[in-house]
């Protein structure tokens, strides 16, 4: 039978195993196997791993020093069809021009849209500041440190090319002057408008200004409309310093996505603009990442009522699956604990554009012939080569079709700001850690893109640092490749105490995933989570059918089943033996 030795060993050790979980697991396996010997063969779970990387063979290439991070080859606008507007801007005299600069156009806009400037100035797109009502942290790009180019603060000349304003390059920028608002970056519908850095960087970076057609101001001014996906995308697709780098669910593939990539933005289908969900009221948008609505319990309102959130539930309700089917009812039962995104965005970076998964600043600063360079050893789905090394930034890893990181999330992000102290010995510092648990009654399991970075920190004070990266001076890292100086100046410029010593620390950042919603037939299957090796394996503290079992109950159960089988087999055998004997006796 082959089962007896197993069983004996088990019986002897059963008493000792109650406390030893590791052993329990092994025992479960052993006892299961013993039942299997009698009844069924166990087939091991084989979940196919998601393959992401595709690395081009490394070879020698000409030195590539182009630092431009927004290379837009398809500059035609996307279609946004809201029907014909009541105003044809090409008929307005004031928009005939000629215009020499952006602020001149803005003045013209504001002369009719008299309140727009005031509205817009409250927006985070203008202030780059966010006072979190609950954690009371001061957030926003103006001050925060991230895990990419680390800090916009002090580097506005470069970073504020994604600020919806004109000319923010240092502390002198006037946030009260409405002429400084950049209306066109959001409202240009020709695709001919673009932004460049607000100040000159080092020689190495000057290419960013080269080879650009001048902006046809009058034409652009006369062609304004509601923003298309590429308007928002001009900044939001390129966050973190390149296409798809930051989010994983936002990249240039969403300009004209297929149905498979995003059912809502599907260019040939629903063709949603960003603002279809990110509903707007007086230039304030729903859908904050600093204060996420992780669980919308209100669902849909009456027509015209619910225009304040960007949640799935605000259109699809809190019971989006059909109650007419068992499966639908079961799925509706998941809504309280599982964010829609968790099942309906099975993987991210699916559009042929890769997202960065790891960034190591330690390797930055290498030069060839005294010049910075790039290596492009990653070829992404759409055929483009992506930099795996840049002298100005270090080395990177990419991923496509990535399985997100899952965790309980109640919507609260807790940031490690320039003021926060941490202990570098405690493993990766969570730049934007988040709250949530299985039993707080409000969290749900959400998908995140998790980014691992090795970035500089203040070794003496155990804080993050501001680096002076951008400038045409001798202290800027993007020029001198000297961390020591860049940090010292970056800290001094912003009056932050600095011990004078830096080192590198691992950091995590988390990006809640919500775009790239797949067609429903591609949504995740039950068994993707409800299995021993499912996607939610690392989440602990709660029972999940199919994933969990009761270690010693299962051991006892399998032993008992095996024992019963063995018992009846033995009994049968004995009966057979004895009946043979009786027959023999009768015969003789």
């Amino acid at each position, binding site marked *: 039978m082959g089962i007896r030795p197993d069983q004996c060993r088990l019986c002897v050790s059963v008493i000792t195993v109650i406390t030893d979980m590791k052993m329990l697991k092994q025992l479960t396996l052993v006892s299961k196997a013993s039942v299997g010997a009698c009844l069924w063969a166990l087939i091991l779970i084989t979940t196919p791993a998601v393959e992401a990387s595709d690395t081009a063979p490394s070879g020698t290439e000409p030195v590539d020093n182009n630092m431009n991070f927004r290379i837009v080859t398809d500059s035609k606008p996307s279609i946004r069809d809201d029907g014909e507007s009541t105003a044809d801007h090409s008929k307005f005299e004031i928009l005939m021009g000629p215009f020499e600069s952006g602020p001149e156009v803005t003045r013209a806009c504001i002369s009719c849209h008299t309140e727009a400037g005031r509205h817009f100035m409250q927006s985070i797109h203008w202030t780059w500041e966010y006072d979190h009502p609950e954690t009371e942290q001061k957030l926003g790009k103006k001050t925060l440190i991230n895990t990419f180019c680390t800090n916009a603060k002090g580097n506005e000349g470069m970073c504020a090319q994604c600020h919806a304003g004109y000319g923010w390059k240092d502390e002198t920028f006037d946030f009260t002057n409405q002429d400084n608002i950049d209306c066109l970056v959001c409202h240009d519908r020709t695709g001919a408008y673009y932004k460049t850095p607000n100040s000159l960087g080092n020689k190495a970076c000057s290419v960013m200004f080269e080879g650009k057609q001048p902006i046809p101001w009058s034409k652009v001014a006369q062609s304004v409309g509601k923003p298309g996906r590429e308007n928002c995308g001009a900044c939001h697709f390129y966050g973190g310093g390149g296409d798809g780098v930051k989010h994983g669910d936002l990249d240039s593939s969403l300009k004209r996505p297929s149905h498979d990539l995003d059912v809502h933005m599907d260019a040939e289908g629903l063709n949603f603009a960003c603002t279809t969900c990110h509903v707007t009221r007086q230039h304030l948008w729903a859908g904050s990442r600093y204060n996420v609505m992780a669980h919308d319990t209100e669902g849909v309102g009456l027509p015209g009522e619910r225009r304040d959130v960007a949640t799935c539930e605000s259109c699809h309700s809190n019971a989006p699956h059909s109650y007419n089917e*068992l499966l639908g009812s079961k799925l509706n039962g998941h809504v309280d*604990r599982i964010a829609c995104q968790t099942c309906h965005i099975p993987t991210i970076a699916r559009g042929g554009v890769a997202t960065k998964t790891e960034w190591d600043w330690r390797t930055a600063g290498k030069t060839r012939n005294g010049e910075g360079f790039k290596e492009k050893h990653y070829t992404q789905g759409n055929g483009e080569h992506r930099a795996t090394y840049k002298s100005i930034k270090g080395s990177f890893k990419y991923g496509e079709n990535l399985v997100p990181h899952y965790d309980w999330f109640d919507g609260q992000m807790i940031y490690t700001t320039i003021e926060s102290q941490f202990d570098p010995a405690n493993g990766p510092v969570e730049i934007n850690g988040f709250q949530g648990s299985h*039993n707080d*009654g409000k969290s749900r399991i959400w998908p995140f893109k998790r980014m691992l970075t090795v970035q500089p920190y203040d070794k003496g004070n155990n804080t993050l640092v501001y680096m002076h990266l951008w400038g045409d001076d001798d202290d800027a890292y993007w020029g001198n490749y000297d961390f020591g100086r860049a940090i010292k100046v970056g800290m001094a410029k912003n009056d932050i105490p600095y011990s004078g010593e830096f080192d590198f620390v691992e950091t995590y950042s988390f990006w809640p995933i919500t775009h790239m919603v797949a067609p429903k037939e591609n949504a995740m*299957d039950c*068994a993707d989570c409800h299995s021993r090796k499912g996607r939610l394996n690392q989440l602990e503290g*709660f*029972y999940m059918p199919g994933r969990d079992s009761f270690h010693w109950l299962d051991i006892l159960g399998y032993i008992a*089943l095996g024992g*019963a089988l063995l018992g009846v087999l033995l009994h049968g055998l004995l009966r057979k033996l004895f009946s043979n004997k009786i027959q023999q006796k009768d015969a003789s």
Partner: protein
Amino acid sequence: MSGHGNNRGQDTTIKKRGEKHYVMLYTRYERFWHWSQALLIFTLFFTGFGLHGTHDLIDFRTAVEIHTYAAIALIVLWIFTTFWNFTTGQWRQYLFKEGVLKVIRFYAYGILVGEPHPYRKGLQRKQNALQSLAYMGFMIFIGPALWASGIVYLFYDLWSSYSWSGNGLTVIAFLHTAAAFLMGIFVIIHIYMTTTGKTPTHYIKTMISGYDSIELTKAEVAYIEETHAVSMKD
């Protein structure tokens, strides 16, 4: 409740009851109930342990769907059968009978050396003392433990918003799984016991055709011939 003479004393002195006749022992409903219950319990066992992760022969989603439908079917069947048991008075079959130890001794020893079964089947005595006890245990313990915990499990969504729901689910899943193991053990032994008849398949054939050859008293034969209350083939 007791006082039914023919439930008593049979084990001490086996009365010569009379001639053997081939009579319908298990009515059509009883057999339908028995076999559909068997099928459902197999299905539930297979899908239940499939979704539990014990085996991989069925994917989680299909397992849950089949398990749920089969569970609902089984509950409906049990409701009908409970009704049937009480309206027909068949529930008495499950009452405690004396002589359990004798029967146990028989299966542990007597059966090996060729002793006769200490229990005679009768028209109104379909089950031996051990059987009655086992089935009673099945009906008041294993069965209810499964359906009660199963229903609570099934309707998790109705109580998932309570703060104790996390622990509650663990407890319910634990009870349900434990009861499922007991059910498995019951079924294994039960199936084995069916092979202990005259021939290994005798009891199974009986449960399919409904007929078995049992000793009837003269009075019983006369009653059957008069009323045709029970179908008799010879």
